[in-house]
């Protein structure tokens, strides 16, 4: 790889180098251990009976025939688990104190029963569970469970759900509002009244799904020796899961051990809590046998969390030169049947709406609405792709209104690098005044515009369409507050054999933590990469942790690792000084050896230093300390968000006859501060953009008016293949974050934020001869044809 010449490579260390991934070898040999790969002797498998109705009262449940079926060990209904508390994603639903004080948001709880007892609220809600000797038999028995349903009126559209006549989903709530929050800056009404131009539009972000290739899975066993509960889970947040299992089952958290070993992709969908994750450990205890549940693809598409569906009624006010005076947006977020993550998505949408632009007057409110659809939670970008879609589309409309080129309009409104740190006047998600710590937005845009070669596209447009194929270019920019707190843990131990063990709280779902965290640790310690073993997402290895969500792992776990490494380095040098009988200031640790700084002085290797166990024949250490005591645990608490940013440009060709959108050129210029492993970073950005392109052009979770999902398989829910995703034209700038020692920012989500907006802009530009306005995605051939058919030709 050519990355070693990259400009962000600084010093002679490992940080900044494209170190090949240490996790690959095992996975390439088929030796990964995903949850479903772990054989637990004597285990049973679970299968869930799910509601076929979007909204219905449960009148009767009869499990007698199912219980008598071959191989069935147990069948549970809501009555069987009525003694357990209903599920609440408590941490996610908590409003940060600063936010509560300043904005007083509404957040209403909707605890979810582990198995529905009285009512079902969406198609796919678990109603009963069968445990059998294997999945075949469990599924056979599911067909024998008889449930009597009395259908109720169904709400699919969130705006209908808000109408006063709408039936209530949750009777304890006054209406179907789950979350409401509003923010104002300046005097937006006056700004709109005095504006030269106002655009007012509705833009819809459509519903789609994270869809990791490994579906969700959980396996649990009571350790016959210790009596403790061991849980293998495909989760991004093992500590939260441990605490929730302990709470639900009435256990001490320390008696539950959660291991997120190999996880086959998460993208947010595996970042929240699900009822299946509580029922399987419960069953392992109650049945006295190991229990495994692995979701099938239909369950994943219809009953694991969805994302993205929002309606924006957005207005921009501008002066004659295109300077934005004010933004007003009324955002409705479709939460689905339960409020799972509270303010996370709505507030992300609110406080990322302004993006890189200078906006003096702001008026935004967001409402999270309950409907009879599968619950919606964060998915890669978590509220940002939706809001960027609305804002960037509105910018494109304003550009048309004012007759200014869209890239020029954007340039006129960008916050400059000399204005950093920049306060927007809003409040960030933790409740502090929102501040962009660093960035160079004009440079991002300048590079994206240069790469897109706008002049060539305009010239081609002037020539006219060839064979009904129209070219267009779009631009979109975003900022992303990354490195969400409150903390992440790193523990470093010097093992008796002289190797270094690093445990971090955040598990990997493919992000390459074992490699990038080892790079950070190796540099901080002064040891070779090869002696570092990294564990992530094991609640025994780090009793405290948060998880890998919200573009936070590198910032938080990375800086915790860096600090722990520096502290352990000091301890090693101190121990070596005692051992060698010299003062610590004369010693240095590099390449795994502590040696005198002056030539010819004494030295000691880590194995010798660490391995002084009091065995027969081995002298007791005179200082009373054993080498294995060298360890440090650091909880890194970020002082604020590290704000990453990016500019995307896309050139497309649209076939007016078939409606096909072909991406001719996709440009991304991003800024994630200092980069630890450029190869891994590029992979993250590329993967994010591919998911964004999927959402922009192909993927949509469709519901009928009866609340029935119509896209429950990969035959009708279209995930892009290699043929649909182009090579990307990538560039990057580096504005180190002042918020942490490493100067890093998160970048796991960034790539997914802008593709919907940029492709909508490009398609709209291509179809300008037809006067098309793109107000929602995905831009499938049929939707593009519909846009052309229904457009008002200029």
């Amino acid at each position, binding site marked *: 790889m050519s990355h070693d010449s990259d400009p962000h490579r600084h010093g002679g260390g490992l940080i900044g180098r494209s170190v090949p991934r240490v996790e690959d070898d095992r*996975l*390439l040999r088929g030796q990964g251990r*995903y949850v479903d790969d772990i054989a637990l002797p004597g285990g049973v498998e679970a299968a869930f009976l799910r509601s076929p109705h979007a909204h219905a009262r449960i009148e009767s449940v009869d499990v007698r025939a199912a219980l008598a079926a071959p191989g069935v060990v147990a069948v549970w209904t809501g009555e069987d688990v009525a003694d357990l508390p209903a599920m609440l994603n408590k941490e996610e639903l908590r409003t940060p104190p600063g936010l509560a004080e300043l904005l007083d948001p509404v957040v209403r709880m909707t605890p979810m029963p582990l198995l529905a007892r009285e009512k079902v609220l969406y198609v796919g809600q678990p109603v009963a569970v069968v445990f059998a000797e294997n999945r075949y038999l469990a599924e056979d028995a599911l067909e024998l469970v008889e449930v009597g349903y009395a259908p109720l009126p169904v709400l699919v559209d969130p705006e209908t759900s808000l109408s006063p006549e709408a039936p209530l989903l949750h009777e304890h709530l006054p209406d179907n509002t789950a979350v409401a929050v509003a923010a104002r800056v300046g005097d937006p009404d006056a700004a709109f009244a005095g504006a030269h131009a106002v655009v007012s539009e509705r833009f819809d972000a459509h519903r789609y799904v994270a869809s990791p*290739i490994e579906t969700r899975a959980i396996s649990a066993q009571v350790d016959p020796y210790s009596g403790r509960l061991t849980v293998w889970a495909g989760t991004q947040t093992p500590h939260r899961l441990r605490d929730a299992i302990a709470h639900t089952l009435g256990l001490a958290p320390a008696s539950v051990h959660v291991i997120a070993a190999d996880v086959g992709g998460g993208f947010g969908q595996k970042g929240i809590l699900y009822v299946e994750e509580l029922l399987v450990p419960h069953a392992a205890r109650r049945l006295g046998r190991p229990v495994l549940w692995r979701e099938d693809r239909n369950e994943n598409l219809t009953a694991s969390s969805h994302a993205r569906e929002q309606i924006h009624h957005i207005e921009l006010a501008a002066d004659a030169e295109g300077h934005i005076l004010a933004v007003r947006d009324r955002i409705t977020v479709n939460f689905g049947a339960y409020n799972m993550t509270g303010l996370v998505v709505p507030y992300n949408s609110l406080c990322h709406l302004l993006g890189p632009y200078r906006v003096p007057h702001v008026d935004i409110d967001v409402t999270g609405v309950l409907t009879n659809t599968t619950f919606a939670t964060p998915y890669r970008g978590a509220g940002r792709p939706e809001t960027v879609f609305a804002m960037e589309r509105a910018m494109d409309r304003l550009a048309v209104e004012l007759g200014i080129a869209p890239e020029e309009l954007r340039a006129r409104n960008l916050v400059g690098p000399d204005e950093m740190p920049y306060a927007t006047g809003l409040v960030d998600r933790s409740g502090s005044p929102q501040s962009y710590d660093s960035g160079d937005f004009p440079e991002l845009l300048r590079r994206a515009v240069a790469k897109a070669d706008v002049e060539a596209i305009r010239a081609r447009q002037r020539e006219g369409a060839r064979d009904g194929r129209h070219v267009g270019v779009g631009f979109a920019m975003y900022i992303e507050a990354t490195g969400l707190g409150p903390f992440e843990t790193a523990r470093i131990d010097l093992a008796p054999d002289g190797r270094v063990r690093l445990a971090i709280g955040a598990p990997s779902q*493919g992000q390459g933590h074992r490699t990038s965290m080892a790079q950070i640790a190796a540099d901080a310690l002064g040891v070779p990469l090869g002696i570092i073993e990294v564990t992530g997402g094991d609640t025994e290895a780090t009793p405290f942790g948060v998880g890998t969500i919200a573009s936070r792992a590198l910032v938080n776990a990375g800086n915790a690792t860096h600090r722990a490494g520096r502290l352990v380095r000091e301890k090693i040098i101190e121990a070596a000084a005692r051992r060698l009988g010299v003062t610590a200031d004369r010693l240095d640790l590099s390449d795994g050896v502590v040696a005198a700084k002056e030539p010819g002085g004494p030295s000691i290797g880590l194995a010798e230093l660490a391995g002084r166990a009091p065995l027969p024949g081995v002298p007791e250490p005179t200082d009373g300390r054993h080498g294995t005591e060298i360890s440090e645990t650091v909880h890194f608490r970020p002082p604020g968000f590290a704000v990453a940013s990016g500019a995307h440009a896309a050139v497309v060709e649209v076939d007016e006859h078939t409606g096909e959108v072909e991406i001719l050129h996709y440009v991304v210029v991003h800024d994630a501060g200092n980069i630890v492993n450029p190869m891994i970073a590029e992979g993250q950005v*590329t*993967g994010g953009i591919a998911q964004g392109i999927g959402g922009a052009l192909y993927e949509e979770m469709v519901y009928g008016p009866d609340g029935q999902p119509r896209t429950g398989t990969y035959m009708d829910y279209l995930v892009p293949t290699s043929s649909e995703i182009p090579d990307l034209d990538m560039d990057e700038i580096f504005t180190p974050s002042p918020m942490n020692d490493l100067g890093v920012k998160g970048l796991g989500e960034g790539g997914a934020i802008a593709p919907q907006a940029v492709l909508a802009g490009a398609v709209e530009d291509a179809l300008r001869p037809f006067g098309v306005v793109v107000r929602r995605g995905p831009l499938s051939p049929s939707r593009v044809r519909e846009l052309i058919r229904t457009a008002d030709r200029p």
Partner: protein
Amino acid sequence: MTPSVPTPLTARTPPLTEPSAWHEIALTVNGRAVTAQVESRLLLSDFLRDRLGLTGTHVGCEHGVCGACTALVDDEPVRTCLTLAVQCAGTEIRTVEGLTTDDAPLTSVQRAFHECHGMQCGFCTPGFLMTTTALTERPDRPDEAQVADALSGHLCRCTGYRNIRRAVCQALDERFGK
């Protein structure tokens, strides 16, 4: 003669429900002779994973779209989630575990995926490896359209495919020359 692999009867083995629905099959898996009793409806993917403990073959969709479960049956890439174990009597099957032995170096295909960073979470990787291995075993280099066609049978959610395409290209270059 390779000894036959005993079939472990784990809890996840379907118990005998209808005697008439069971069949004895003999086949070769990763070079070893295997004889087993299988239920008619047992999927090849479950046979490999649950009976033989070859869990490198991953199941992502169970309806033949994602390609994660791909193994080579008589040298052809096959979706093991759409194939019944009983259909494979007499065949020779290769799974990701059979590409190389535990202590031997990676094959050129595996190395290409590592060197090009053509993998992230690794869940879809075995399927891509098996299809790519089949491409490298053709007598002549497949053309671009054939490569694109082969890859379009696999979903990856992490990488954005770019590095997977590079890896496949590198593996083909190594096999057939640039």
